[in-house]
């Protein structure tokens, strides 16, 4: 996988729960039928109150009305991103919309597991709040080897927390790929 992810920032506040990431009424679409899958992109982050989307200015939608993908690649948020329900549709919707990574102060457990084990988006943690200094639309470059985030627009680089134990699952692209590579699917059945 690429070790550098570059793209535009979309900035959010704290406690972005899964109902804001993908409102419950949209959970009825298939996650495998390509035509229906597009709808998850269309409605990604559509539950965020309008004035709280695309900070600091606000009122910037993640996905423009009528579109199915987002111009933003990296989501920057405060603490407890992905709290709430267990719906894997949430990181799935972000991926379908075109997001590749999230940079948040912290994550809720189930959302974090879903990101990693499903191989949807890469969940990095910051060592200090970044959602006040990075602006929506800034061009960012995430270096997964060095664990750094560079704001190319503002010419400043931040240290990120290393992914730790899960880096191998992230690099494999999900728990199934990881388990096959490491013969865990066989051994987990034997033990």
């Amino acid at each position, binding site marked *: 996988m690429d070790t550098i992810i570059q793209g535009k920032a979309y900035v959010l506040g704290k*406690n972005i*729960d899964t*109902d*804001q990431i993908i*409102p*419950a*009424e949209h*959970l*009825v*679409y*298939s*996650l*495998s039928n390509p035509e229906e899958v597009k709808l998850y992109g269309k409605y990604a982050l559509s*539950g*965020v*109150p309008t004035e709280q989307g695309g900070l600091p200015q606000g009122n910037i939608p993640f996905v423009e009305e009528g579109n199915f993908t987002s111009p933003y690649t990296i989501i920057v948020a405060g*603490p*407890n991103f992905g*709290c*709430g*329900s*267990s*719906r*894997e*549709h949430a990181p799935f919707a972000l991926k379908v919309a075109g997001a590749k990574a999230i940079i948040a102060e*912290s*994550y*809720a*457990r*189930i959302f974090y*597991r*879903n990101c990693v*084990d*499903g191989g949807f988006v890469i969940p990095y943690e910051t060592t200090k709040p970044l959602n006040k200094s990075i602006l929506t639309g800034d061009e960012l470059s995430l270096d997964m080897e060095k664990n750094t985030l560079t704001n190319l627009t503002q010419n400043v680089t931040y240290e990120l927390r290393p992914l730790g*134990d899960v880096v191998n699952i992230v690099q494999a692209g*999900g*728990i*199934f790929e990881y*388990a096959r590579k490491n013969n865990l*699917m066989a051994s*987990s*059945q034997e*033990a």
Partner: protein
Amino acid sequence: MAQTITQKIFARAANRKFVDPGQSVWLNVDVLLTHDVCGPPTFDIFKQEFGPDAKVWDPEKVVVLPDHYIFTANEHAHRNIDLLRKFAAEQHLPNYYDVGTDRYKGVCHVALAEEGFNLPGTVLFGTDSHTCTSGAFGMFGSGIGNTDAAFILGTGKLWEKVPDSMKFTFEGQMPEYLTAKDLILQILGDIGTDGATYRAMEFDGEAVFSLPMDERMTLCNMAIEAGGMNGIIAVDAVTEAFVKARTSKPYEIFTSDPDAQYHSMYRYNVEKLEPVVAQPHSPDNRATVRSVAGTPITKSYIGSCTGGKITDFRLAAKILKGKKVAVTTNIVPATVHVAAQLASETYEGQTLQEIFESAGCNIALPSCAACLGGPSDTVGRSVDNDVVVSTTNRNFPGRMGSKNAGVYLASPLTAAASAVTGKLTDPRDFL
């Protein structure tokens, strides 16, 4: 080496003598729960990864309880039920509770308890964040996503990090105006929506053990609202009587060692606590009901895995008996069993159902309904600038439907008292 109850359950499921918090272990799973929203994508991933003809690891251990989008005209929702039905037939799953049949139960976390699937000492994973509800039975229950659930379907195992435990002790005698909901909202206000992330929340103390099982379930249910991996309450005679009345399956009882290590400990005296709500738009935005009394509301909602169990309705009936509601009030029993109890249980000479009907409440069919908004035709779904007082578990923006609505999470006593006046009202005004 001293361990908490959660550590001991992990150790048993990992075939070890003890486990350390922070260590990742492979757990043998006793039950996997899924429902109509997350079941179909889980089955897709299972077939994609294990092959189109793969069989689940143990059909007896897979419990499929459709409950989210049941009473709706939404065709995609109907298709999800069809997909559950097809998979259950292909895999010969004995524990599938089909919609439109007399096997249909309703809200999965409550039905699991009623049907005897909650067994002390066991490990339950479910594709629903409120799977932690089952921790009330001295077992481990936790929510997961579809990919992890598909992995379990094929292998019967999942890796999990052993959580640190936090202990919450409630001392004193429960006053009649206080419920389990007030206790958990109290905790949430103190520790916040990420105050227990990746940790076990252990509930203890004489007030907790004075509660019936469904109230204990309410406490554990909202562990996830603090980010907790699980909520847990030790087994006592009340737990054992409940379990033995529903199943003859064997189980093992674990208790925390007196010198077990905790991340943190909190103590409360329930006699000094007051009825509280969580104000919009977060479950940790606590206020005493008295401090916000008089706030106008447009709807009252009594239902869900958190607040739609029989004790919730007994409490609401005490207040609604002989009264009229001033705002639209939806009574949504969690399960078919609870609905039957509404029709059979009496309070001062009237059935609970009669009390609610005479008060002008709308009684809906058992399902998750508007707790999470749901399709546009869902009973009780919030619209426009609704202000809802609700016995459910979440009030993030848009949770019950409209992004512009505000939801006050409250006990069934507070929801009933507020329904009568049309304003947030402390239940002590009626008791």
